[in-house]
């Protein structure tokens, strides 16, 4: 037998052995934990790209209240209903939606256990739990204290509580905002919040002040935000960097005071945004590292701590990508493509990742930051040089600010349809 002939026969044996695995692929079962931007997108794209794959989505809430545009609710420009997404579109797309709390993952048996004791088996698992708030990360703060000093960093009841407090605040009052150190969900979010509340104050209680006591020395879209604050709300907003005493040491919810580098500050309304970590299920399944976030292979978002598991969205460590709904949406598509390839015994496709992030300063004043990412196994996820970045510093006749405010709304409507249907 010639070497060539032997190679051909060896090749045919390999094909025969591979065949049962391919047959199994058609019946592949994928479970997705979490129906936020990441999990919903992964589930929808799995079904879209391969209708034969069995997709079960586990979500503890009946519907999703999005963090994007929750700052518009705080400003009185949007309703909670307007930022609530139904899971009906996912069901219509053939995704089995199971309402429940994923309480444990048996990585060996490939099963997710729910709080009610039921179990769901998987061939591949997508974990997209978002964030948990680390209340103990701010001395004096707690989950109970969020009734006095809301975090409003998970949209819903907390958003409405903070809105009610802002509405009840007298003209001339002080609103204190305490953003966390990096990394955290939605890096420009605290500053969009400051902007839209300032926009509300300007219209309804113009003698009021906003004091931002920051753990950081700089923040996302800083130049654009600060220029906008000066132009739109002169004298209203005082941002104190961590190095200038802005870093908060402790809070006293009963006294409504916040202790920072220059003493105790009293607020009429106080918003504490505590430090964060990957959602509880990622911690209990040991998918997170010591820093509280989940390391992944940048090409596939496969966990580096467990096989057959992908972690996407805020919970993952995704190099240059910020923790945003847009990032999670892009990562959901990459995980879906990688999972379908893996079930079919093929190599993962080269990932395409981007982030499009709009912030509103007022309902008619929008700014953005965007990047398309380069992804390599060695360097991970990096921004594309000489591309992407921020809105123009000085608007032209095009009317960038007004256009971007409209595009922000368009983005919200379209990413919602892309994620939830």
């Amino acid at each position: 037998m010639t070497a060539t002939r032997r190679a051909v026969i060896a090749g045919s044996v390999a094909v025969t052995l591979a065949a049962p695995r391919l047959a199994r692929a058609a019946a592949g079962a994928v479970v997705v934990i979490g129906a936020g931007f990441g999990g919903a997108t992964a589930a929808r794209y799995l079904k879209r790209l391969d209708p034969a794959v069995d997709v079960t989505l586990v979500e503890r809430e009946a519907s999703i209240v999005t963090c994007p545009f929750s700052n518009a609710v705080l400003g009185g420009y949007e309703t909670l209903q307007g930022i609530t997404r139904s899971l009906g579109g996912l069901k219509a797309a053939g995704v089995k939606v199971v309402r429940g709390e994923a309480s444990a993952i048996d990585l060996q048996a490939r099963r997710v256990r729910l709080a009610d004791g039921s179990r769901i088996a998987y061939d591949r698992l997508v974990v997209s739990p978002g964030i948990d708030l680390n209340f103990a990360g701010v001395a004096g703060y707690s989950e109970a204290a969020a009734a006095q000093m809301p975090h409003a960093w998970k949209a819903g009841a907390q958003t409405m509580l903070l809105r009610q407090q802002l509405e009840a605040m007298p003209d001339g009052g002080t609103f204190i905002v305490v953003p966390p150190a990096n990394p955290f969900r939605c890096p420009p979010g605290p500053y969009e919040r400051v902007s839209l509340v300032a926009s509300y104050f300007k219209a309804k209680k113009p003698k009021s002040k906003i004091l931002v006591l920051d753990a950081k020395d700089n923040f996302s879209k800083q130049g654009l935000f600060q220029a906008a604050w000066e132009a739109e709300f002169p004298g209203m907003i005082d941002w104190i960097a961590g190095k200038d005493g802005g870093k908060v040491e402790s809070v006293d919810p009963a006294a409504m005071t916040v202790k920072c580098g220059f003493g105790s500050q009293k607020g009429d309304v106080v918003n504490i945004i505590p430090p964060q970590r990957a959602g509880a299920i990622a911690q209990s399944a040991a998918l997170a590292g010591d820093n509280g976030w989940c390391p992944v292979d940048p090409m596939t978002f496969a966990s580096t701590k467990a096989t057959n598991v992908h972690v996407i969205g805020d919970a993952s460590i995704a190099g240059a990508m910020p923790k945003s709904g847009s990032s999670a949406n892009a990562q959901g598509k990459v995980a879906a493509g990688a999972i379908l390839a893996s079930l079919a015994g093929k190599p993962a496709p080269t990932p395409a990742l981007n982030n499009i992030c709009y912030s509103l300063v007022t309902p008619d004043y929008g700014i953005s930051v965007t990047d398309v990412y380069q992804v390599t196994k060695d360097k991970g996820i990096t921004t594309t040089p000489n591309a992407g970045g921020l809105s123009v510093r000085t608007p032209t006749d095009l009317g960038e600010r007004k256009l971007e405010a409209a595009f922000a709304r368009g983005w919200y409507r379209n990413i919602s349809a892309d994620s939830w249907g």
Partner: protein
Amino acid sequence: MRALAAFAATLLTAGVAAAQDGPSGQAMVQTCYVCHGPEGRSAEAVPALLRGQKEFVVRQMIEFKADRRPATIMNRIAKSYSDEQIAAIADYLAGLK
């Protein structure tokens, strides 16, 4: 202008095979849906993505990339793509139903 058209024509014929090292046209176009809506069918404010217009799409992306077409964000995004990737994007978009 004629040089641009010739350049675009070169891209149209050259691109797709050369782009195989990077993400596929489909993978790249799927990232557009975050703003332009599923399958590029935008419901609001953001323009929908044109189908069946490969040459036009290539030309627009080149104009954005060179800051010759005024834009808020597409000029920043277009600069992220190589000419081969733009051809692959336009090719996939052209085939969308």
